[in-house]
């Protein structure tokens, strides 16, 4: 599914200087894996997530998604990939204010071929247990509910890959557990989940853990407590 080969990301800083956020990182992720990326602040986790989510392009190296080299794709091509194949879940939910839960879930359909299918949006909300709150504004929902709406939004175009950046970071324990259960369900359906988290308890849901330090992978393990999803059939 994901094949990263020597990908680096350098940001220009100040007078001719540069910061190398990722240094020749290589790894693969098979379809259906549940991977957690861990690391201290500034280790390059978010940069990696942005690159894998096609929000950014690597400065060097090659990134293949489903066998397609997307490293040099145009903005339009990357947008289509984000829309059809990737679902984002953010730490701060990023729902649009003054917009109902239902309208938030519909947004990815605006940029997808075909019409905006309200019934599909409602069933996505049903899926996360929030159909009853479809017409509530984002600000009227609790943190956990907002995150579940954002998961419904991520699912609406049925992407194969879900990228979650600290999805429970702003939630209490119970709400965090609900969200993780949802992600686990999605994984059980065969979706590939890649999440960034500091939290050991959250990391335990994953079958594989990639540890980053200073923009490089320092460990990549699928431990005994990290079984692969049955659909994957073995370590990558």
């Amino acid at each position, binding site marked *: 599914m994901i094949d990263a080969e020597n990908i680096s990301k350098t940001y220009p800083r100040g007078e001719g200087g540069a910061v190398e956020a990722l240094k020749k990182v290589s790894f693969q992720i098979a379809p259906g894996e549940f991977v957690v990326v861990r690391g201290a602040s500034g280790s390059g986790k978010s940069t990696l997530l942005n690159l894998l989510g096609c929000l950014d392009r690597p400065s060097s190296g090659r990134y293949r998604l489903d066998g397609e080299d997307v490293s040099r794709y145009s903005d339009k091509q990357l947008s289509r990939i984000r829309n059809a194949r990737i679902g984002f879940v953010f730490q701060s939910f*990023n729902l649009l204010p003054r917009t109902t839960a239902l309208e938030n879930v519909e947004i990815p359909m605006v940029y997808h071929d075909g019409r*905006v299918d309200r019934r599909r949006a409602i069933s996505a909300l049903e899926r996360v247990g929030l159909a009853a709150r479809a017409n509530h504004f984002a600000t009227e929902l609790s943190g956990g509910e907002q995150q579940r709406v954002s998961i419904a939004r991520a699912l609406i175009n049925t992407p194969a890959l879900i990228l979650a950046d600290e999805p429970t970071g702003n939630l209490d324990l119970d709400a965090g557990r609900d969200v993780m259960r949802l992600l686990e369900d999605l994984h059980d359906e065969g979706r590939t989940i890649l999440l960034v988290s500091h939290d050991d308890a959250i990391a335990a849901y994953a079958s594989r853990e990639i540890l980053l330090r200073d923009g490089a992978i320092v460990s990549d393990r699928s431990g005994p407590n990290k079984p692969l999803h049955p659909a994957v059939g073995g370590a990558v």
Partner: protein
Amino acid sequence: MKAGKLFSQAARSMRRYRLRTTLMMLGIVVGIASLAVLTSIGEATKRETMQRFKNMIGTFDTIMVRPGGGRSRGMPTLVNVPPTLRFEDANAIASELPEIRAVAKMQTAFDVDVKYSDHAASPAVIGVSPNWLELRSEKVADGAFFTEEQNVSLARVAVIGTDVRTALFPDEDPLGKTLRIADVAFQVIGLLKSRGAGPAGGSLDNLVLIPVNTASRRLFNRAFLTMVIAQVKDPYRSTEATDKVRVLLRDRHHIRPPALDDFTITNPAATMAQVRRASSTLTKILTGVTVMALLIGGVVIMSLMSIAVSERGKEIGVRRSVGAARSDIVLQFLFEATSVALVGGMVGVVIGWGGMQFATQMQKLPQILVWRPFATAIALSIIIGMVFGIYPAWQASRVDPIQVLRS
């Protein structure tokens, strides 16, 4: 992104940010409303002026010669004009100039008592040639106009305007009745069709027409004319004909340079063109002022949209993350700006329409349907929305989703 989706997104944004949308619209509403009102009034005034002018002079293929040089105010009458334009001058214009098809003579007098039974009026009493009707494109509503024979035989016959009919014959048919003009009896043989108002707004129907020879010999005892109306053969060469008439009259009146003319020639076609030019200049000035107002409206849209872009950074980031390309963001913001301007334009048109109705009523202008300013206003608002939406839309497309989603 399809147009339907674009429209619904723009509509949602406009609803979501009502106050900002209203503020953005305000400039356009004011600009479009004033554009619609001013240009409509300008147009209505122009049409009304032209109509009144046409009412007065009748046709555009005639030139008018009045005695006396320079400008004189009001209608030339027997008491306020010099006796320099004579019957023979009119005959010479008719016979010596091939450019002229026909000539009508005129003797006008005001303050003449016209009476019938116990009714009295003071209309303009005008002695005219029998071909006057044809030269002025006027019509007799009832009865007949006098003939050349009646003119030659100094017949005491009169054709009256509708105001005179109302004043003197409120309850009876005037045809065949005898009225008295300065105590001379005249038989009413015709009733003129109403001409409405003249350029100054006064009625053109308060008149009595009698044969010019009868007027000269039986009523006024004057051998000079107050006006000669000459019909040119080719209306497109009326300026040339005007020059010929001038040369002829100067010659007949023995006027040599540097002496000035002792007559005045008016060329209605030229005067009309002048009126048209003056009103179109006025319209241009008004349009210029309102275009300025619209530009200000456009700048307001641009500034508020630019502020909106920074406030809606997170929304842009979310849209980008779920699959919006830069071009989609450009289109969305451009569509929003255009929709705001268009809705503003439409509101402006409605207000402008109301304003125009009010203003035309106040100014007593005719209620005419002037659609062009309104169509222009709508088109202009779309253009303004598009032009002034480009910069904020471009700005929105440059928002870095990574930065805004992280914050």
